[in-house]
């Protein structure tokens, strides 16, 4: 089974460890993983800024890079939403290459969904002692239905989960929103951090690096140097 890993631009730039954790999990489950070297970004920042043509150009680039894979997996609900939902429901509606994007969407998975629903893993290499709280990122949750999968995997690694109040509420990241409307974004993030603190968990875990950088940035700014901020792939791969 040939699986293409879509690393995501944020992981590439900022937290390569998450990419390697994903690699370890996929290879460990027996997948032949390919990582096209020319990949950059799914195009969502352009799409959400109103740059439709940029988004389409990048989607076509991604399509070409992963054409010969059986599956494509990304450690992000947000980029997966872009490639599974935005392309077929909006960007390529009425375009000749719509069927190709439909095919890409059908074989594209967010990492936790792939591990649980396709690979049906029943063991993970990571061991985690302690309590975590899980933040549901918006696109993964509401566009793709990512909810129980990461929790299931985390528990497989031994983590206890303390649910926070409003786990499904947006952390305020929103891509460029976090900069354009930084003050509102910060307040939304502070609300999220309050919920996190209230759980007393030693780590906040999520599935989208954008949200995680946002939360980490706010926790650190408000003096919390302790709480770990981790991608679930790091925890279950034992790379946290």
């Amino acid at each position: 089974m040939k699986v293409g890993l879509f690393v995501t631009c944020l992981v590439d730039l900022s937290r390569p460890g998450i990419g390697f954790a994903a690699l370890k999990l996929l290879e460990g489950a027996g997948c032949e993983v390919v990582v096209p070297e020319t990949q950059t970004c799914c195009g969502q920042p352009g799409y959400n800024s109103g740059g439709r043509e940029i988004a389409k150009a990048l989607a076509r680039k991604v399509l070409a890079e992963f054409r010969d894979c059986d599956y494509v997996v990304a450690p992000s609900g947000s980029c997966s939403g872009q490639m599974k939902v935005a392309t077929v429901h909006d960007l390529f509606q009425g375009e000749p290459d719509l069927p190709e994007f439909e095919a890409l969407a059908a074989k594209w998975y967010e990492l936790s969904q792939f591990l649980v629903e396709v690979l049906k893993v029943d063991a993970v290499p990571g061991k985690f002692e302690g309590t975590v709280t899980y933040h549901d990122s918006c696109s993964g949750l509401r566009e793709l239905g990512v909810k129980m999968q990461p929790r299931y995997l985390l528990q497989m690694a031994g983590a206890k989960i303390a649910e926070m109040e409003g786990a499904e509420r947006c952390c305020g990241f929103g891509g460029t929103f976090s900069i354009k409307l930084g003050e509102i974004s910060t307040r939304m993030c502070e609300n999220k951090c309050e919920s996190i603190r209230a759980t007393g968990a030693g780590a906040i875990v999520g599935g989208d690096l954008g949200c995680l950088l946002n939360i980490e940035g706010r926790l650190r700014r408000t003096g919390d140097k302790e709480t770990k901020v981790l991608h679930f792939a790091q925890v279950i791969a034992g790379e946290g």
Partner: protein
Amino acid sequence: MQVQSMFFKQRASEKLGDELLQGNMRKAKGKFVDGRAKAVAEFGVWEEVRSHAAKVRDRALANLDAYLLEFEANATRRGAVVHWAETAEEACAIIVGIARANGVRKAAKSKSMVSEEVNLNEALEAAGVEVIETDLGEYILQLAHEPPSHIVAPAVHKSKEQVAELFVKAHGKPRLTEIPAMTREAREALRGHFLGADMGISGSNFVIAETGTTLTVTNEGNADMVTTLPRIHVVITGIEKVIGTLEDFATLIRLLPRSAIGQTVTNYLTLTTGLKMPDEADGPEQMHIVLVDAGRTKLVGGPMQEMLRCIRCGACMNHCPVYQNVGGHAYGWVYPGPMGSILTPVYVGLENAGDLPNAATFCHECAVACPVKIPLPELMRKLREQQFDRKLRPWPERLAIAAWAFAVKRPALYAFLSGIGARVAKWMGGREGLIHSLPGLDGWTKGRDMPAPAGRTFRELYRQRSLERR
């Protein structure tokens, strides 16, 4: 209402710093959301009814002109006079004209967002008509000289202490501390107005083509007074409100109060059609229905027509994390929250709406909550596309996007730049790995650190790993 939406960012900033407002918003938070969730859970066929509701709204919108004429014909047959207004000014002129022709001195009003859109109260007052808002929330705001901050709960931003203060000034009675007592005092103050008004003004949540019916949906019963007691009843509503049948209404009304506040049904629903009979004790002698365009036809037929399905339930704002934090006044016009971020730019002009289309993280809570399945985030994105195409965003932002787009399409260049970026940013993060301020990104770094990158990109490390493995 004067448009202030271009100042969204500043207004939001003020609201975030307003401790009193933040406290009041916190009290309200959750009540709407939890109430709706419970009502939806026990309903059983929510998605089916939602789809049907979207369909019946679309059906009328797809042939809006014919549905409107059907409504007009039936309303006229029943004795109402149907007026058409292209603009806010025309709508006001029509109603002022009706008031003048009938020597109206006092008008009692039940809640109408369209009347807020067109500034009806000001127009009537300028013509010497005393206007009394009778919905408790609207009454409070009329005393406070403030616009509503929510389309269903207009005074949600006020605390009971603030209301008590307003009542002391307006009623000249001792200060009250309990909400039921305040409500009774307002009831007593308003009773005389209902009985003494010559004109009742109401909105209409829908107008029904089949029967020529207008209608009101309330819990307080004020709309029933307004549509029953005065001798003249004026309805002001938007042209998009037309639906086909009474059965369509039955579908929509299952969704409206549940979505708004989690109620299965409002205490009062009144369908009003035509005039008082000669030997009836109550009912108006004249009925005027003003159908207002004021920007709605800009949505008709275009890629955003779906927005016209809106049934004004407020669920999108109740679920919006931006609205929850900044409140309705930050949005700077009549309609706040996600639906306002779409309607305001369309009705008052994209160039006057500033950041509204960008005031969303696209978390999709609104789209999930909307009872008529309006894809609110997608519509906001369409407005962003218009802003982008018309170059309405500030130049540094446009430059940044252009530069990013250039690089991201060129893998070699991108690899080179991101490699440098990762190293420089790591260096900036120092020992703690945290960047405290970044030029151009102060929107982020004012309130948050930027966790610094690890230093080398995945791409580099992966290539190295591949080489080592060989």
